[in-house]
């Protein structure tokens, strides 16, 4: 298993957000987390990336427990890419500078040496003519694609996507989902929190339905979407389909 979560618990004060989550993600697998707002999807991703410390349980990356409190999170985060709902590009840097910053600072590679490879990434996602633009000169879809390129530039072993299309205008959602499809085809290991049910059904290997901090039901997309076993899963799917 590339990533294995074992009874992960997380509470904010008196509120339990993750209530014993166990999850396996195989190399090259794409797992979609679905569920209502507040069900714990985003928190789970933030815990995997060590942006939030977990209270109990373990998170294994290649068999090593990365949730060990004494561990330095920095080298682990370098192996895990994360993309956020609100893009979070650095507004004072151009698209290219956004992407160059981490590989240059973390590995000390000179910018000139990084440039061909990074230009290649921009070309692959159709943004080579936007490299010298600042984030506020880009559309939401373009910003989100730059954010994905920025994460990819660190050569992560696994990518986490936190509702990356939720802030986008409907007509811009497609271009970002297309990037995710490409990554999936290339064999990237991915965990997504998403509200894009059609996309999840088409592309995901496995769907996890989160409810009140627990994985209530999981399985291949066909099973979850056609024949959900739990009442809450059925209710949730009925609600999102009617919108």
């Amino acid at each position, binding site marked *: 298993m590339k990533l294995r979560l074992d009874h992960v618990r997380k509470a904010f004060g008196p509120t339990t957000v993750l209530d014993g989550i166990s999850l396996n993600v195989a190399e090259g697998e794409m797992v979609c987390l679905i569920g209502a707002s507040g069900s714990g999807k985003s928190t789970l991703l933030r815990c995997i*990336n060590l*942006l939030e410390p977990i209270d109990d349980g373990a998170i294994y990356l290649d068999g090593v427990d990365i949730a060990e409190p004494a561990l330095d*999170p*920095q*080298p682990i*985060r*370098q*192996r*895990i*890419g*994360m993309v*956020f709902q*609100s893009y*979070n*590009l*650095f*507004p*004072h840097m151009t698209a290219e500078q956004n992407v160059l*910053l*981490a590989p240059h*600072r*973390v590995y000390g590679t000179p910018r000139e040496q990084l440039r061909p490879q990074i230009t290649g990434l921009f070309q692959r996602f159709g943004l080579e003519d936007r490299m010298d633009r600042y984030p506020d000169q880009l559309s939401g879809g373009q910003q989100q694609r730059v*954010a994905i390129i*920025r*994460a990819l530039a*660190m050569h992560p072993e696994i990518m986490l996507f936190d509702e990356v299309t939720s802030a986008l205008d409907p007509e811009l959602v497609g271009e970002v989902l297309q990037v995710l499809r490409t990554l999936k085809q290339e064999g990237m290991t991915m965990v997504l929190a998403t509200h894009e049910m059609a996309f999840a059904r088409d592309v995901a290997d496995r769907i996890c339905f989160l409810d009140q901090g627990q994985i209530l039901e999981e399985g291949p997309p066909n099973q979850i979407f056609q024949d959900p076993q739990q009442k809450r899963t059925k209710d949730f799917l009925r609600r999102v389909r009617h919108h």
Partner: protein
Amino acid sequence: MAEGPAGLTRRQAYERRLKRRSLTTAGLSTLGVVSAIVLLVPLAPGWDRVKTSFFNGEVFVRTFPDLLQAFLLDVAIFAWSAPLIAALGLAVALARDVRNPVLYPLRLFSAVYTDVFRGVPVVLVVYLVGFGIPGLGLPRPWNSPYIWGTVALVLTYSAYVAEIFRSGIESVHQSQRNAALSLGLSMSDAMRYVVLPQAIRRVIPAQMNMLIALQKDVALLSFIGPVEIFRQAGVFKSLLANFTPYVVAAVIFLAITIPATRLADHLIAKQNRART
């Protein structure tokens, strides 16, 4: 669509009428107040005395060159204090963030420091540092009032400047730091390359206002020795038994501070526009 004369829409025509009326009213009102001052103030019983002792043209012309010369000292003290204040202020602001327990004293010191120096009047710090430290019997040149006057200004202003930097750092949304950390940057790199550049940009207008205040407060050093413009004006006042040199000094200060204030306001307005 109904268009009025001159091809204006109804709303545009209405707004133009409104604007014209308010301009006329403002003009008349200003004219009234100014003429009242010009006519009434000279009627005051002491006006002639005030006029000769504060607005004496002859004294003005005679003392202006020397006062301008003395003002260069104010500018010089300002010029070497400002970078020191920026550096110390930033260092103190950052020290409040250190998490390393070895550096805890630094954190504690910076918290106490900002509280103390924001709580004491500048003139008191100037007196205490400017007279107190040379009083230790330091050899020349270490007893110079220039050095200790500068130290007093730097200590006081850095406390304010540090608080402004802190507010800037805190105004950068947590998600920016998280994005930087998620890329594998260290805490200090996230601060240095992601948070701080945005924070500094946001507080430039506020720091400009601190610079303007500093330029004025340089005059406080006159109390401990340096013959800068305020003290030079005092010398002329005694010599000529006339207060006009103080008015000259005020005019010279205004010549610097008014444009600087306008620039700061312009930057603030520009930033507010950029954010909306």
